Structure formats: C-alpha cells, structure tokens
C-alpha cells in the first residue's frame, strides 16, 4: 500500500517539471498510447520496482487524476489529519486523566485499616471489603428507631440493585456500643434485617479507631452503666465502599432508598466500564 503510494507520488512529482496546467497535461497524455507509455517508463525510471506493463494503463488513469496540486493536497490532508488525530487523542487522554484526578480529589479520605470481628466471631478487617460493594452502617442494637429504619432502607437498596447486578453487595453493621452489643445480642438483632447483613464488633479502642477512620462520631453518656439502659449518640450515614475497599459516597438519613439505588447503580455501571468486568 505504502510503496504503491510512493510510486504514484514519485511519478506525479516528476510531472511537476512540465509547466503545463492540469487540462493541457491531461490532453497531452491521453491522445497517443505510445507516448504515454514511454512517458510511463520514463517516469518509473527512479522507482525501485518496475511495474509490469499490464499495469501501465491502470497507472495512466491514476496519474491522470493525480496532478501535482492533488498530490500536494493529498499529502497535506494526510499529514494534517495525522497531526489532528494525534493531538485529538492526546487531548482526550489528558481530559480523561483530569477527570480521574477530579474524582480522586473529590473523594473524601474515609476508611482505612481496622480490625473487628463479625457477630460469628470471625476476624474482619478492611481487606474483607475487597471484592464486593459494601454498604456500611454504624449503629447499636438498642437504637430506638433510626438504626432499624436505616438498615431496612439498606435492605431495600440491596434487593433492588441485586435484581439487576447479582450478588454484588456485602452489607455491614458496625456497632458503636461495645459495652452492650455482644455477639449474641447482635446475632439476635440481625435476624430482622437483610439475611447477608454482617455485624461487626470490637472492644472500645477498636470501635473508636474504626469510627475515627470513617469519620463517625459516637458518644456514650458519661457514667452510663455498661449493662444499663442508655442510648448512644452517633452520626447517621450509610457508607458506600467500592470493590477495592475505597470510599465512594455517604448517604445521610434524608436520602431516600430510590435515590441511593440510582446513585449506587450508576457507580456500579461506571466501575464495570472502568474495570472491564462484572463482580
């Protein structure tokens, strides 16, 4: 392809030597076959490979179209297009990079290492977040009404999205009441919610640490009897962590289930497009 292009170019460049215009050149080449053939041979003098005579007629018609001006135009357009596409590609790459940076900058530094155990006494750390979309809620079992409502909402969101995407979620309930939320208590509590909901429990220090990492405030009243009847004040958010265990979004109490479904659904789609696979 390239070499035949070069041949054509050479022949047309040679034709440049004659000061004839397009129409006169055409009229002079067409009348006699012999002159045009000898001209062809002459033109081919510098080309590396001699074309077989049978192609000469074909070449002649091509040369007829391929005037110096057209050649120059052809080359200019080709070069122009090449640089245009190259710069366009560069621009697109830069734009994509910028978008990625913006989305990374826009992300809050929420999450990080933690060590807790599940309601079934298995160790659970931030590494266990990897491979699933995680919806994380911080609460306590003696929570009057907000926690159960939020956990129900989480179940609705999961059911709605898993219909479309399959089993992609890992729902988590992190207790902010280490004194009273024993594994036994949490096991009983979780029975009323999503069947895959995992309860996470730790001692006071590890609970404090995970809450700090997730920017969750919690406060047990001072002088509270560890076995007594009290409420734990805490921030109310459902966190979305992606399959790499990175924070994506926090949903407050006012955000409706449908809104969360829409937002999380978009995240899943974006992630699948970016990573090129489904979970």
């Amino acid at each position: 392809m390239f070499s035949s292009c070069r041949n054509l170019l050479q022949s047309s460049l040679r034709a440049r030597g004659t000061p004839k215009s397009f129409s006169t050149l055409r009229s002079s080449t067409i009348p006699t076959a012999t002159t045009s053939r000898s001209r062809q041979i002459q033109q081919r003098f510098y080309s590396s490979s001699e074309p077989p005579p049978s192609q000469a007629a074909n070449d002649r018609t091509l040369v007829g179209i391929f005037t110096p001006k057209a050649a120059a135009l052809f080359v200019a357009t080709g070069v122009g297009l090449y640089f245009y596409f190259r710069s366009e590609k560069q621009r697109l790459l830069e734009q994509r990079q910028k978008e990625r940076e913006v989305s990374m900058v826009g992300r809050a530094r929420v999450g990080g290492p933690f060590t807790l155990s599940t309601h079934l006494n298995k160790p659970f750390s931030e590494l266990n977040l990897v491979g699933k979309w995680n919806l994380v809620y911080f609460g306590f079992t003696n929570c009057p009404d907000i926690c159960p409502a939020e956990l129900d909402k989480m179940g609705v969101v999961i059911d709605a999205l898993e219909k479309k995407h399959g089993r992609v979620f890992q729902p988590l309930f992190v207790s902010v009441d280490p004194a009273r939320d024993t594994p036994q208590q949490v096991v009983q509590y979780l029975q009323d919610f999503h069947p895959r909901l995992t309860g996470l429990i730790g001692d006071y220090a590890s609970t404090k640490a995970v809450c700090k990492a997730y920017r969750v405030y919690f406060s047990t009243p001072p002088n509270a009897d560890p076995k007594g009847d009290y409420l734990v004040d805490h921030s109310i958010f459902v966190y979305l962590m992606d399959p790499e265990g990175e924070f994506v979004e926090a949903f407050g109490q006012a955000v409706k289930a449908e809104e969360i479904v829409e937002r999380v659904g978009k995240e899943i789609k974006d992630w699948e497009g970016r990573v090129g696979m489904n979970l």
Partner: protein
Amino acid sequence: MGWFSSSKPEHPAAASRQGRTKCWESRDAYFACLDSIGVVKAGEEGKACSTQAVQYKENCAKSWIEYFNQRRVIADRQKDRLASASTYSAGASNRTIS
C-alpha cells in the same frame, strides 16, 4: 438468673422487630392522646391518657421513652418555627405585591 432478679430484662424491646413495633405503636397511641388534649410535653397531661401511658411504659425502655418525649418537644418547636417562617415569608410576599 437468681431468685432476686426481676423477670423483666433491662431493654426488652431493642433486639427484635416485634418488640420495637409494639413500643412504637404504644408510643403513637400515647402521643395521639396527648395531641387530643393539646399537650406537647409528656408528663404534663395530669390524669388524662393514663391507660396509654401505662402501655407506653410497659412496652418501651426508659431510654427510648426519654428520647421519644424529647423529640416530640423538639419537633413541635420546629413546627412552630417553620409556621412562623412561612407566615413571615407570606407577609413579605404580600408586601411586595401591594
């Protein structure tokens, strides 16, 4: 646990949905009664609503009762504030029209 411990656990309602629902229902009944006599702050109703009050205390943990009662007062104050804000803005818009 022993002979001297009470048979009623500290917070019976919390761990099960059934217990929670029962508490919420008796709370709603009690608050509806307070509404009917125009009382906002629980405990200021005198002898009225005593049946509902007993049920409420029976079915909800003390901490929950305190929380719900407090929230009722706060919600009422917010309602007042919203109402006054909307009347103010309505007045303001009336002024601009006239």
